[in-house]
């Protein structure tokens, strides 16, 4: 030691980091900073804990002590009393009726169920043709089917009895996936375009030729338009496409009293139907109901209202006074009146405005009304996006020599739509939630079905379990939509942050 006594002390190695004082690290630090950072904060935290505790202590036992198997509300109450519980949810109603809440009174595929699970009984009764065929008495069939349904469990009924709506839903997910996630291969979009016809065939059934021919007719009209526009310009092509469309689907010469070949489609269909009668049993819209109905109305409304809303927004910005005036008054009138009033208009008044003798499906009318309603709201959202773009973008597009449609398609709309994504998705969520309102004009939406279930003697007086189940169904879908919009915003963000 004596050798280095006159050298100043220099520490050559780092001291090990000493641990932070207790209370400035880990859980305690987090609690201090986030929950107890001051007297007011502490009081508020304690009050919140008390409120949350009292709410949860009331609800959670009710939820988790719930009774899952019972035949009626009274049975539920007896079981609850036998178990000595103060509160217990009667989830048995969901367990027994969830198929009804999901599908309403949509018929199960009885022939398939009978073939799969009752082959022997079916053979004894004389085969599928004898039970489900044309000549059989209704009472016999009803007896067979109801005996069959009583024995099958709900999950078997769900999987095999409702395979048509389930297949439509599964295909919907496949059809929507390439639109939602751009990482998926683009050729899948062809299926997305075909999906509406597939879904129509699966859900409504009937002859396979109707959706097929309609699809082919639309394709044919577009092809005619393409061919003509390649030779004679865009405008002539558009006119040709419209004329071809009318020739295929309607009777454009009917005005001057010529019938002849037109319209092409029904004639072709009757030929094909008699030659190859393929199809699924037809199910009328009256049978549709439950959450399936909400999804059908919601999806159709969303898909149809987006292009219409964009068109209205562009029309509202138009420099042509007539177009602008028409769009503004349409948007304001639709937005100024509640959806319920429009739905009542669709169900009560629409027949007054249509040519005498025509009447069409209530479900279709509702979809049209919901679409128009949502498109007016969308138009305002998109207009906000258009207005938010700096004027330079419009001028740049013009100076590149792009015409109106090209500049809109390539420059303006991609940016404007990106800005308005949150608003667009909010409108879609609103549309989906508003599908519950169809209960007031007699369609069987999930909430209407809760009334129907409560009207039975077994489940008279049950409220919360049904509302919670329906609410959770809607919550799941809407929450997914809002999260997706956040993801999309994140992905499309191009500014550097």
């Amino acid at each position, binding site marked *: 030691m004596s050798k280095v006594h006159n050298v100043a002390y220099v520490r050559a190695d780092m001291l090990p980091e000493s641990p932070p004082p207790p209370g400035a690290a880990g859980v305690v630090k987090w609690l201090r900073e*986030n*929950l107890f*950072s001051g007297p007011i*904060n502490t009081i*508020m*935290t304690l009050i*919140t*804990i008390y*409120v*949350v505790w009292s709410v949860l202590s009331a609800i959670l036992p009710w939820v988790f002590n719930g009774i899952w198997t019972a035949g009626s509300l009274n049975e539920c109450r007896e079981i609850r009393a036998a178990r000595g519980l103060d509160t217990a949810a009667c989830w048995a109603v969901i367990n027994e009726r969830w198929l009804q809440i999901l599908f309403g009174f949509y018929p199960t595929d009885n022939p398939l169920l009978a073939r799969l699970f009752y082959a022997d009984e079916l053979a004894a009764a004389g085969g599928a043709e004898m039970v489900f065929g044309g000549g059989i008495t209704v009472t016999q069939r009803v007896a067979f089917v109801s005996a069959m349904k009583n024995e099958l469990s709900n999950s078997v009924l769900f999987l095999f009895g409702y395979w048509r709506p389930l297949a439509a839903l599964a295909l919907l997910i496949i059809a929507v996936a390439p639109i939602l996630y751009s990482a998926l291969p683009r050729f899948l979009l062809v299926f997305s375009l075909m999906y509406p016809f597939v879904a129509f065939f699966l859900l409504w059934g009937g002859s396979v030729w109707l959706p097929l021919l309609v699809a082919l007719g639309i394709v044919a009209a577009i092809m005619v338009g393409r061919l003509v526009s390649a030779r004679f310009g865009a*405008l002539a092509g558009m006119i040709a496409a419209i004329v071809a469309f009318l020739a295929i689907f309607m009777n454009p010469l009917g005005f001057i009293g010529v019938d002849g070949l037109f319209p092409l489609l029904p004639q072709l269909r009757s030929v094909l139907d008699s030659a190859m009668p393929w199809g699924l049993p037809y199910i009328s819209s009256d049978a549709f109901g439950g959450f399936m109905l909400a999804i059908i109305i919601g999806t159709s409304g969303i898909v149809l209202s987006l292009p219409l809303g964009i068109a209205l927004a562009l029309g509202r910005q138009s*420099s*042509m*006074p*007539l*177009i602008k005036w*028409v769009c503004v008054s349409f948007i*304001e*009138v639709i*937005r*100024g*009146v*509640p*959806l*319920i*009033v429009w739905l*009542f*208009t669709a169900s*009560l*008044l629409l*027949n*007054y*405005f*249509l*040519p*005498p003798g025509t009447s069409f499906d209530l479900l279709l009318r509702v979809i049209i009304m919901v679409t128009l309603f949502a498109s007016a709201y969308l138009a305002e959202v998109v207009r906000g996006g258009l207005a938010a773009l700096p004027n330079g973008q419009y001028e740049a597009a013009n100076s590149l020599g792009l015409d109106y449609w090209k500049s809109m398609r390539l420059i303006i709309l991609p940016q404007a739509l990106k800005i308005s994504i949150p608003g667009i998705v909010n409108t879609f*969520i609103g549309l989906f*939630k*508003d599908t*519950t*309102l169809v*209960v*007031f004009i007699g369609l069987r939406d999930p*909430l209407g079905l809760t009334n129907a279930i409560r009207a039975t003697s077994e489940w008279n*007086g049950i*409220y*919360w379990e049904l*509302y919670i189940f*329906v*609410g959770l169904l*809607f*919550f799941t879908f*809407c*929450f997914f939509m*809002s999260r997706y919009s956040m993801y999309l915003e994140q992905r499309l963000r191009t500014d550097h942050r």
Partner: protein
Amino acid sequence: MADVADQPREKFRLGMLLYDVRYRSLTIQVVAAILIMLLLVQLVDNTVTNLAALGKDIRFNFLWSTAGYDINQQLIPFTSQDTHARAAYVGILNTLLVAFLGCILATIIGVLAGVLRLSKNWLIARVMTVYVECMRNTPLLIWILIVFAVMTEATPQPSQFREGGTASMILWDTVAISNRGVFMPRPIWADGSGIVMAILGLSIIGIFVLRYVARKRQEDTGQILPVLPLSLALLIVPVMAAFFLLGRPITLDYPVLGGFNFQGGLQVRNSFIALWLALSLYTSAFIAEIVRSGILAVSNGQTEAAFALGIQPNRTMQLIILPQALRVIIPPLISQYLNLTKNSSLAIAVGYMDVRSTLGGITINQTGRELEGMLLLGIFYLITSLIISGLMNVYNSSVKLKER
């Protein structure tokens, strides 16, 4: 495209209607006008034909015939002998009542929830997020039905309020919440109550004058008047003085249990409470999001700049943050008020007698005048929305950033 004026004037050809940008918009508009006219003619023609086939016509004189039905909540006197027009008026007042009260409650809850969601307190922020997401992602109709079920199924019967019953009145035995409705004291206006109310009105005007004077004084001299205590004093002291000097002209009529129901007092029906609460809770979630985004929209630099200038925190909020945040908040807030007003038509779910139930419901059923009834109903809602959005436009232009 070169400047049009430089070119020699072309002779007008018919093809230019389609291919020349100068004339094309004219062509499109003429075609559109013709199509719209055809559509309208078709609609009117169809309607006239259909109505004629049913033996109906379009007349509004049903409004002056006897209604023949009762309305269970009336803000103005109404009996079944009154006209359909008066029934519609009662319904309009009911719609406006629930919309007005709903807007007030939704604003209070919404502002609270929006501010608390930004709180640094982790727990409170999470609880508020759960509240907002639950409300926004489930249909309003479910909330209306749930609140209605709470009011009718989970509240005690009036007979439970008897001696020895399981229920008791709240707020010093003045308010009873039962499955027949909420019973609360009703004010009785005696002679002289008009004077008290007039003094109250004058006090409120006085508060506005005081605020104006205080601001003027601050701008001129820099002295700050204690506005809040002065306002409170101005609000309370004169009214109380008049009330006691005139010998208490306003008394309260308390609800008392008699027979199978409460007698006296003011009965607020469960349908009204359910609609009001559900509308307010649902809309408040949207307002919370608007308030939150409005506060976040004011950049932090504004607060820092205010502190750097030595402005106190509460005055920073009042003078710097709020005016900027409100410019972002108010327009969507008013459109939420509009939504609430339109959503009040969901009254149909709980049987609250709003304008849709009277004019658009029972009146239509009794007279068979769907077309006229729905038209009037639509016009009422349309006018309401146009008035509110007109006010919003006035506000927007008054707070717009002046760009020079």
